[in-house]
């Protein structure tokens, strides 16, 4: 497509928050017909970059954005982006599960102007069917989106984006749109992406699944600490276009530095496990087995977040196991509810703080909810409760240290500390944490890691379920990698680095080149 303006040309964009620059003079070009990958570790600036393209962030002065022939003001408005042919599919896909495919197609952006246009149901369904057929899909438009497999939902979202009535598509941005896909199920989606590119659309593909990136992209931009640190092209040959090159570029020299304070976690191998999981099966898990020792911080990570997350919920009685054995200190353990798990000494902090906390309740009420016993259940000594909470807030350095404050008004890091101290004060035997530092700033992160190490040093067994591999590598003594519902790899000691984890998460044979069909 030489001679045509590139689908996307962003130049010289910088952005800082609170005086911290998270994006330094970044430029990015996506050609017509090109699938361009954007990769980087957490905090590398991927989402800032995408949000700059999508008009959510205004860059700090300077910088220019061109979509196809159109030069857009920064920040670009949704209407201007639409008119220039930019389409976005984000991680949540923006589909309504309770509506049919055809109905979802009528919900596309730009519809409002035609909202009262007369179209019969049959016409809508025909139009939808035609749009699906253009990409070789023959789903019934009346199917509810919620009844589709995750990969089919991604297909629907992508087709909806690139075939909408608002005009020709120049640029398609897929922002972690494939991150919810089961491991074996990405093929059809990747084929669709190639097909879209073959129509002359530039595709910006943001993903942490490097196998997919290598499989589907023509070129890749690597971000680290807000800088563009690498640009790879698939035509460069396998020594350059490889997982090793990508991970080295993503993590830089930092990856080789040995993670700190891990020595404390080295446990004698002959300690009896506190928790033993054998052959566990669930909605995702097909055969998961592992041991968790007293005082150990064990990481559990997987390409598909839901896989690892399910293990945590099963251990806390919030999801049902379909088979397998769990033993807790030698006794059979099969919690029927979170309450039962709590009595057995298992604690759990959910990934979302909307679930791990009651945001409209006060800090005290949240902190003591899991165990009101010390304050009396028939007569709650509110003064003692408040004093105990105050002490915990001081110990864990929660800011502001105000027991009466509504939890929802605290910052992410402080909320997470409250969620943690709720359970640590119950003195559990096993603590399961799902994404313990999601949306937590760097200082609070360090504080939380310290709290966890201290607790582990006291003998607490911690299971950290995390999709942030840097986090898993930093905090855990040992990390298990889940692929296809089973434990596929284990890393510990010096071998446990973000780089090695990233490679373990991308089993080599999966990234065969996808070509347009």
């Amino acid at each position, binding site marked *: 497509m030489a001679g045509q303006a590139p689908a996307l040309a962003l130049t010289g964009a910088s952005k800082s*928050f*609170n*005086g911290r620059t*998270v994006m330094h003079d970044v430029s990015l070009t996506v050609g017509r017909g090109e699938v361009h990958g954007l990769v980087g570790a*957490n*905090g590398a*600036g991927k*989402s*800032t970059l995408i949000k700059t393209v999508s008009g959510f962030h205004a860059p700090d002065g300077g910088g220019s954005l061109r979509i196809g022939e159109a030069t857009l003001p920064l920040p670009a408005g949704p209407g201007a982006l639409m008119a220039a042919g930019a389409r976005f599919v984000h991680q949540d896909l923006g589909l309504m599960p309770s509506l049919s495919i055809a109905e979802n197609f009528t919900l596309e952006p730009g519809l409002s102007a035609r909202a009262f246009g007369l179209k019969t149901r049959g016409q809508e369904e025909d139009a939808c069917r035609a749009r699906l057929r253009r990409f070789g899909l023959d789903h019934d438009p009346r199917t509810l989106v919620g009844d589709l497999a995750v990969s089919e939902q991604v297909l629907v979202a992508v087709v909806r984006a690139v075939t909408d009535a608002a005009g020709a598509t120049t640029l398609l941005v897929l922002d972690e749109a494939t991150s919810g896909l089961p491991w074996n199920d990405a093929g059809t989606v990747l084929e669709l992406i190639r097909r879209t590119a073959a129509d002359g659309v530039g595709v910006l593909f943001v993903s942490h699944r490097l196998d997919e990136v290598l499989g589907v992209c023509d070129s890749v931009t690597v971000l680290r600490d807000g800088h563009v640190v690498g640009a790879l092209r698939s035509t460069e040959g396998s020594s350059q276009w490889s997982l090793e090159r990508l991970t080295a570029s993503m993590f830089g020299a930092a990856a080789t530095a040995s993670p700190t304070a891990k020595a404390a976690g080295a446990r004698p191998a002959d300690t009896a496990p506190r928790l033993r999981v054998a052959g566990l099966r669930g909605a995702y898990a097909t055969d998961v087995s592992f041991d968790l020792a007293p005082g150990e911080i064990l990481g559990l990570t997987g390409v598909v977040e839901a896989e690892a997350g399910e293990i945590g919920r099963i251990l*806390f009685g*919030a999801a049902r196991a379909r088979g397998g054995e769990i033993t807790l200190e030698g006794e059979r353990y099969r919690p029927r*509810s*979170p*309450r039962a*798990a709590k*009595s057995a000494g298992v604690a*759990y902090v*959910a990934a979302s703080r*909307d*679930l*791990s*906390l*009651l*945001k*409209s*309740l*006060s800090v005290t*009420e949240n902190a003591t*909810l*899991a165990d*009101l016993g010390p304050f009396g*259940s*028939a*007569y*709650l000594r*509110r003064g003692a409760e408040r004093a105990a909470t105050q002490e915990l807030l*001081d110990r864990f*350095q929660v*800011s*502001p*240290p*105000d027991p*009466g404050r*509504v939890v*929802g*008004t*605290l*910052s*992410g*890091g*402080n909320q997470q500390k409250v969620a943690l101290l*709720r359970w640590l004060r119950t003195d559990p035997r096993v603590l399961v944490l799902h994404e313990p530092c*999601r*949306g*937590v*700033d760097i*200082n*609070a992160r*360090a*504080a939380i890691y310290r709290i966890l190490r201290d607790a582990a040093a006291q003998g607490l067994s911690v299971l950290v379920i995390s999709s942030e591999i840097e986090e898993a590598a930093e905090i855990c003594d040992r990390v298990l990698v889940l692929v296809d519902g089973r434990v596929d790899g284990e890393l510990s000691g010096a071998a446990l680095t973000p780089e090695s984890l990233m490679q373990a998460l991308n089993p080599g044979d999966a990234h065969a080149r996808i070509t347009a069909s």
Partner: protein
Amino acid sequence: MPESPPVEKPTRGAIPPTSGSRGRTAGIADRVRGAGSRLSVPAVLIILIVLFCLLRPETFATWDNASTIAQNEMVLLIIALASILPLIVGEFDLSVGYIASITAILEAKLIGGDGWDPVLATVVVLLIGAAIGAANAFLVVGIGVNSFIATLGTGSILVGFSSYISNNKTLFEGIPQVLTKLGSGHFGRVPINVLVALAFVAAIVYLLRYTAFGRYMYATGGGRDSARLAGVPTESIRAASLVASGFVAGCAGLLELGLIGSASASIGPEFLLPALAACFLGTTMGENGRFNVFGTIVAIFLIAVGVTGLEQLGAPNWVEPVFNGAALIIAVSVTLISKRIGSARNLAADTRTGQSPTEEIEK
């Protein structure tokens, strides 16, 4: 996150960084401002009382007037207390008024019509109130019917049964003297039903504030899934609050029977909307906008004082429902608007200090 203190403060004690101290002082300022808006409805109540006392000193500013207002509102108050229990856990009970009717009718029918022993009849009738609550709980918690729908349905069934049992008549006979005394008697110059209502208020305030059960109720209402993940037995809590609601509504029915001296299918339903309105109006006085007993009481008296005063000034009787509805809408709207202004002010403060709370972390 409207007002998060944006920067983590790793150490406390030493001279705090400016942002950290802002977080703390903002907390205090928020609370003062919050208390201000929470006290606005009680302030309006006091202003109304003073105003009517000045305008109608010979009729309004009398003990008899005060005691009549109080006596007339106690059944409503107890029905509001019955409603507030499910509301706190996040459920509606729209059957409270109908439960009050049917218990009053059953009491009169069993004693006056069928010659039951009054004590036995009263115990049975109160158990029936609780049993209706249990039926609601079964539908809502056991089967999963939306409580709005389930209790609307049971309420309608109760209307039918009430008509059937009373044969569409007003029952006057067989009302135990004790009930009449409790409902309409006086202790000195104080209506006895005020003392009865105070006992209910005390019991429910104790339950909500000083028991683990009450805490679990607020937690369940704050987020059922989150409460469950903290080990709260949310299903039992929801079920128990519906059963308690039925029981308390049944008590209110008997008290109404004692107050007006008759039972019919129409005595209860008219309480439902004012009771719910009082609970919601009461949230404007609750900590963090919660359902609470104190606010509910103030709300009931705000309406009663306003309506009585206006009537004494010569307002026609259609004013009552208008005043009722307007007070609810205005109080809740004003509270929401003042909250929005408050959070906008906080946001502005965050922007001034260069802190962007939602963007502090790059994910």
